[in-house]
C-alpha cells in the first residue's frame, strides 16, 4: 500500500513537471514560428546595415514574414550582404519590392522593413535565391549629426 501511494505521487510529480515544460514552451517561449514551416531565401545588398543581427525579423507593415539568417560582406567593394528566409506563405512579392533597415521605437532593435512593390505583366515575383536591389540603409546617428552640423556650417 505504501509503495502504491509513492507510485501515484511520483506519477503526479512527473505529470506536473511535463505540464510545467508545456506551460513554458507554449505560454512563455516561442519557436521562431514564422520560419518554422517552408521558407525560401532572398538576398539584399546594403550600404550600411546598422546594428541588424542574425535572427532579426523581416516585417511587412509590422507583420513578421521572415528572419535574417546570415550577414556577410560580398563583392569586390565589400558590401554587406544580408541573407533572409521568408515564409513560403508569402511568396508573391514583386521584384520591385524594396527593403529598408528600420528601428523599432527610439531605442529598440533594428529590423528589415519589406515594402511590397507593384505587380504588372512585365514585373515578375521574387523567387528563391533572388536579390532585392532596391534597399535603403540604416540611419546612423553619428552620420546624421555630422550632416546636420555640416549643413549648419554652410548657412
Amino acid at each position, binding site marked *: 500500500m505504501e*509503495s502504491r501511494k509513492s507510485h501515484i505521487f511520483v506519477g503526479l*510529480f512527473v505529470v506536473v513537471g511535463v505540464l*510545467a*515544460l508545456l*506551460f*513554458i514552451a507554449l505560454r*512563455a*517561449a516561442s*519557436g521562431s514560428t514564422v520560419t518554422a514551416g517552408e521558407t525560401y531565401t532572398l538576398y539584399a545588398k546594403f550600404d550600411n546595415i546598422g546594428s541588424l543581427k542574425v535572427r532579426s525579423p523581416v516585417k511587412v507593415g509590422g507583420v513578421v514574414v521572415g528572419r535574417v539568417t546570415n550577414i556577410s560582406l560580398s563583392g569586390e567593394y565589400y558590401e554587406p550582404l544580408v541573407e533572409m528566409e521568408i515564409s513560403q506563405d508569402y511568396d508573391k512579392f514583386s521584384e520591385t519590392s524594396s527593403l529598408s533597415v528600420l528601428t523599432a521605437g527610439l531605442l529598440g532593435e533594428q529590423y528589415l522593413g519589406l515594402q511590397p512593390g507593384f505587380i504588372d505583366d512585365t514585373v515578375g515575383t521574387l523567387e528563391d535565391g533572388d536579390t532585392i536591389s532596391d534597399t535603403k540603409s540604416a540611419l546612423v546617428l553619428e552620420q546624421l549629426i555630422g550632416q546636420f552640423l555640416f549643413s549648419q556650417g554652410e548657412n
Partner: protein
Amino acid sequence: MDRLARLGATVTDAIAGIGRALAMLLGAIIGKPTPRKSWPLFVQQMYVVGVLSLIIIVVSGLFIGMVLGLQGYTILVDYGAEQSLGPMVALSLLRELGPVVTALLFAGRAGSALTAEIGLMKATEQLSSLEMMAVDPLRRVVAPRFWAGFVSMPLLALIFSAVGIYGGYLVGSGWLGVDEGAFWSVMQSAVDWRDDLMNGIIKSLVFAFVVTWIALYKGYRCEPTSAGISKATTSTVVTASLAILGLDFILTALMFGG
C-alpha cells in the same frame, strides 16, 4: 621541503578522490540493466528525492518570481518600459535562477539527506552486510538514488521556472498593472525555446549529475562515525553549492557568452 611534500600529498589525494568517485559512479550505473528489480527502487527514490522536494521548490519559485516582478517593475517603469517585465522575469528564471536556485535548494534538501542516509548505512555496516549477501551496494543503493536525482532535478527546475513566471505575472499584471496581453506577448517574442529553454534544461541536467554524484560519493566515502557523517553532510552542501556556482559561470559563458 615539508610544505612541498604536503602540497604533493594534497594533489595526489584530490586526484585519487576524483578517481574513486568516478569508479563509484561507473560501478553504479554500468552493468546489466535489471528493470524488474531496480524500477521499484527507482520509484521509491523518486518519491523521496523529487516529490518531497516539491513544496520547497514551488514556494521559493513563487516568491522569487514575485520579487523579480516587483524589482523589475520599479526599475523598468522609470524608462517607460514596463512591458519588458515579462521577458525580464522569464529570461532570468529560465536561463539562470531556475536551474541554479533549484540545484542549490536540491543540494540542501535532498543532497544532504542522501549523504546522511548512505553514511549511516555505512556506519551501521548495512553496506557491508549487503556485500556479504552478494548484493552489490553500488547497484542496489547508489544507482537508484543517482538516477532519481538525475531525473527529478530538471523536472523540479522546470516547475520552479513555471511557478516563478506565474508569480511574476501575478505581481506585475495583477498588482502593478502591467498590461496582461503585452506581458505575455512581449515575453513570447523575446524567449526562444532553443536558446533559452533548452539551454536551461541542459544546465539543470549538468547540475543534477554533479550534485547527486557529490552527495552519493560523500556518503559512500564518509568516515563511519557520527562525527564523520556530520562532516560529510556539511561537505556535500558546501562542495555541491560551489560546484553549481562555478559550473554555472562556465556554462553561461559557453551558452550565452559567445
